[in-house]
């Protein structure tokens, strides 16, 4: 079983992170009745004997002594982290895994990235290495941050580069909170675009989320609960909206409910890797299946159902509703409409009492209304995990690599350009050592290139699919091939029945001609090389 480390950066990152750890503890408490430290828990927690001073207290098996989160908490001002450390979760965090400063980044990406980056580089490296050493087999770093601020955005993305250099084999999954239209930070477009460049280059996979969508979802739930519509009631133990049984009692802040959603997202994402199921999906499979281009690694997520129903044995009609909802634009965690855009790939991660036939039935049902890219018409990745989330009987997380992220990026770029044209607030950035205007222009061009990629894909949307002519080697030859390494042309001569040499020679010619006929330019060179290699054999056949 592999482990993952969560790195929470900035106010937003730490607040979400705090919710996440709370939910993770509750989930494992519900699943793990015996209190034995097993592999599922070890993916996010260490088992530590707190009586042992210093570092040597890790226990790998047996009863749970004291759980410590595999987390690194980073913030350049103390308020949020202090609150966490005084709250009920203080024992879950290792005191050595914090990095704080006093003054904060002032909503300035440059301060977060350049100033604090260089200042805390060594400390960061040390904490990260420590957390990696505590892991038997580290698979993934989860970074949680916001894009609009200074610390989360600047220092968070500084980290990415560091992680890529130090731990190239470990995946970097980034949960980024994008600024909504009515964002209260004026410089958020600058911060976001500068951060996007880093995400483009150094992240393996990004889950973009925005506050507006989260808020809309919470409002919808409140509406359903208050109106008592259709007899739906929110179960008191639902992890989504309530915190009864939670360690954090105060539920007055509206962000808490929204942070819970993001925390649920992370839990569901890792559920199939932590718990058993009939069709497992590990974290490395997410990147493998959902990222066709290295740059196009932005996945729009949706979680359903968001409210539990009184019934536990839900007849298939309700189950199907869960699948339908996953594709509706109201349930996405980003302002996006995947149904009317182009899918590059889609993953459905189901938890609970759902079987393969339910999954297949719903895929068949929903497929006609979705548009997939021409080279991936059946682009589905599915997983079934037996353990449902706490308080639900089943749930679905849909991850879509879809061109519907484009509007978010385009809008961000527009807001950026409005400020940049007037050079508003620019001097705060340029004052920082290491920042130049070229940083801005590079960031914008990186984003423009990304948008262009999505545009190109969208252009293929309604174009009829044409099958590219295939290589069809009718008869094969055994070649002691000394051709280039890429083409190890390698076939067996077999003549069923007739050994008519003229027949086989003409078939050989046919196959060579088709080899040269492929519409892929760079292959022509290889093919010519191939023919050159085979020519001597070709003549041998006729002797």
């Amino acid at each position, binding site marked *: *079983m*592999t482990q993952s480390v969560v790195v929470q950066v900035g106010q937003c990152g730490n607040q979400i992170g705090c919710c996440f750890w709370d939910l993770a503890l509750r989930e494992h408490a519900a699943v793990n009745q015996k209190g034995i430290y097993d*592999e599922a828990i070890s993916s996010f927690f260490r088992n530590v004997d707190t009586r042992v001073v210093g570092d040597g207290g890790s226990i790998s098996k047996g009863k749970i002594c004291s759980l410590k989160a595999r987390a690194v908490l980073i913030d350049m001002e103390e308020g949020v982290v202090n609150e966490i450390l005084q709250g009920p979760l203080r024992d879950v965090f290792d005191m050595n895994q914090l990095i704080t400063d006093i003054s904060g980044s002032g909503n300035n990406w440059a301060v977060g990235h350049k100033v604090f980056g260089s200042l805390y580089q060594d400390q960061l490296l040390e904490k990260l290495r420590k957390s990696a050493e505590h892991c*038997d*087999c580290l*698979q993934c770093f989860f970074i949680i941050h916001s894009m609009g601020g200074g610390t989360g955005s600047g220092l968070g993305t500084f980290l990415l580069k560091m992680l890529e250099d130090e731990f190239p084999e470990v995946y970097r999954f980034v949960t980024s909170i994008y600024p909504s239209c009515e964002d209260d930070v004026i410089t958020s477009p600058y911060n976001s675009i500068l951060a996007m460049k880093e995400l483009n280059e150094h992240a393996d996979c990004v889950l973009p989320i925005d506050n507006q969508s989260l808020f809309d979802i919470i409002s919808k739930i409140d509406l359903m609960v208050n109106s008592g519509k259709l007899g739906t009631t929110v179960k008191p133990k639902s992890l989504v909206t309530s915190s009864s049984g939670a360690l954090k009692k105060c539920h007055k802040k509206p962000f808490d409910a929204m942070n819970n959603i993001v925390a649920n997202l992370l839990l569901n994402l890792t559920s199939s890797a932590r718990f*058993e199921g*009939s*069709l*497992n999906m*590990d974290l*490395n*499979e997410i*990147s*493998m*299946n*959902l*990222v*066709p*281009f*290295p740059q196009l*690694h932005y996945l729009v997520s949706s979680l359903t159902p968001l409210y539990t129903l009184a019934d536990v044995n839900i007849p*298939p009609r309700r189950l199907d509703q869960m699948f339908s909802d996953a594709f509706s634009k109201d349930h996405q965690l980003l302002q996006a409409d995947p149904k009317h855009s182009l899918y590059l*790939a889609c993953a459905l991660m189901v938890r609970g009492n759902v*079987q*393969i*036939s339910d999954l*297949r039935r719903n*895929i068949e049902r929903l*497929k006609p209304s979705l548009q997939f890219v021409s*080279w*991936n*018409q*059946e*682009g*589905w*990745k*599915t997983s*079934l995990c037996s353990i449902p989330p706490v308080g639900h009987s089943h749930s679905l997380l849909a991850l879509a690599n879809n061109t519907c992220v484009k509007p978010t990026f385009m809008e961000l770029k527009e807001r950026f350009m409005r400020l940049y044209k007037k050079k508003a607030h620019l001097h705060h950035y340029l004052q920082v050592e290491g920042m130049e205007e070229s940083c801005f222009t590079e960031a914008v061009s990186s984003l423009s290139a990304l948008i262009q990629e999505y545009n190109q894909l969208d252009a293929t949307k309604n174009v009829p*699919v044409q*099958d*590219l002519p*295939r*290589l069809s*080697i009718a008869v*094969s030859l055994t070649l002691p091939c000394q051709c280039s*390494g*890429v*083409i*190890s*042309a*390698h*076939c067996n001569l*077999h003549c*069923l*029945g007739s050994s008519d040499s003229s027949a086989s020679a003409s078939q050989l010619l046919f196959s060579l001609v088709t*080899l040269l006929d*492929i*519409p*892929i330019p760079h292959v022509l060179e290889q093919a010519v090389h191939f023919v050159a290699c085979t020519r001597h054999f070709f003549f041998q056949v006729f002797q």
Partner: protein
Amino acid sequence: MSIVTVQLGQCGNQIGFEVFDALLRDSHSFQGLCSKRENEAYQTSCKERFFSEEESGVPIARAVLVDMEPKVINQTLSKAAQSGRWKYGQHACFCQKQGSGNNWAYGYSVHGPRHEESIMNLIQKEVEKCDSFSGFFIIMSMAGGTGSGLGAFVTQNLQDQYPNSLKMNQIIWPYGTGEVIVQNYNSVLTLSHLYRSSDALLVHENDAVHKICAKLMNIKQISFSDINQVLAHQLGSVFQPTYSAESSFHYRRNPLGDLMEHLVPHPEFKMLSVRNIPHMSEDSLAYSTFTWAGLLKHLRQMLISNAKMEEGIDWQVRPPLSGLPPLGKMSLSKDLHFNTSIANLVILRGKDVQSADVEGFKDPALYTSWLEPVHAFNVWKTQRAFSKYEKSAVLVSNSQFLVKPLDMIVKKAWNMFASKKECGPRKNELRALVWARLKC
């Protein structure tokens, strides 16, 4: 003679468990509609073939479990132990922590060489336990990373290390509408490698088995264990003991060898399929009776029309009247209705089995021109019934059944590849391998 099973990846391990469970349940929980002595001989033969004995008397499956992550193996081991009837060997499993990430290249080029020695050692130990060793079953899926990539690697190694033993790969063909996005790449790579190193590929299609569960078994919410149980039933009905000749009452010693001898006359044609009849839920079984004539008629038509189950057979398809279509005429664009066979093996089990008439399968129109029906067709008849079915028939055939699905997979893999898309940020190896394979 004994068969050692290598279970690879999540799919392989889940199916492997169901297979051993089905085999033991059939041989021990069921009288078999024959004499006690007969039944005991059957049980002994089955046990010797698939299980080894331990002091406590609990049979231990002759199996090696391999997976690159621990969850499934742990589950499989505990399920077997919980059944109380049998279990896996204590040290018969090999697992790692990280999984293969659905990446064939990881399974084949990274995990394979890295763990070659450990895995081959485990297999060696299992083989040494056999008094007389016949060959290997390798159970794997094609869509994932471990089953497909590591499976291909292990099969190759087995060929090198045990050149005189037979290897039959049980391959799970993924659902057409996607379980894994890169399944077409993984499948193409697996098949091309296996074709060179395996002796026979027994292909099980998820779509077909799913339909059996839905239509024949009437299961409303089909789970993977339902699917795996149907598969296990099919395999059991092929590989449970059978008589060695028409009239003798000794159980066949080397089913694997005999099967391959009959069904794989030419090394270039080694894809086999299984069709069994009847197949239904236990409730329906209580109300059904069968005749051999009826069963065999349906089975023959299933073969000709390439149907996978006894419902929805297309009775319009007939074998061509004036001999066979010429060999070179295999155009895939026109609908290939008639399913030509290279070789067929029918295994009949149950009551009055000697009276069953299999003449319909000896029609030369069913077969290719270069193999006479007397060589192409074989039948094994056994008195002892299988798993509560008073009469059951299973057909293992080497035919054109896989042409369309194979074409589909290659087409999709080619489309994805030729559009110049990378397959994720870390897989240049995969790209080169796919390119090489797609050309063969």
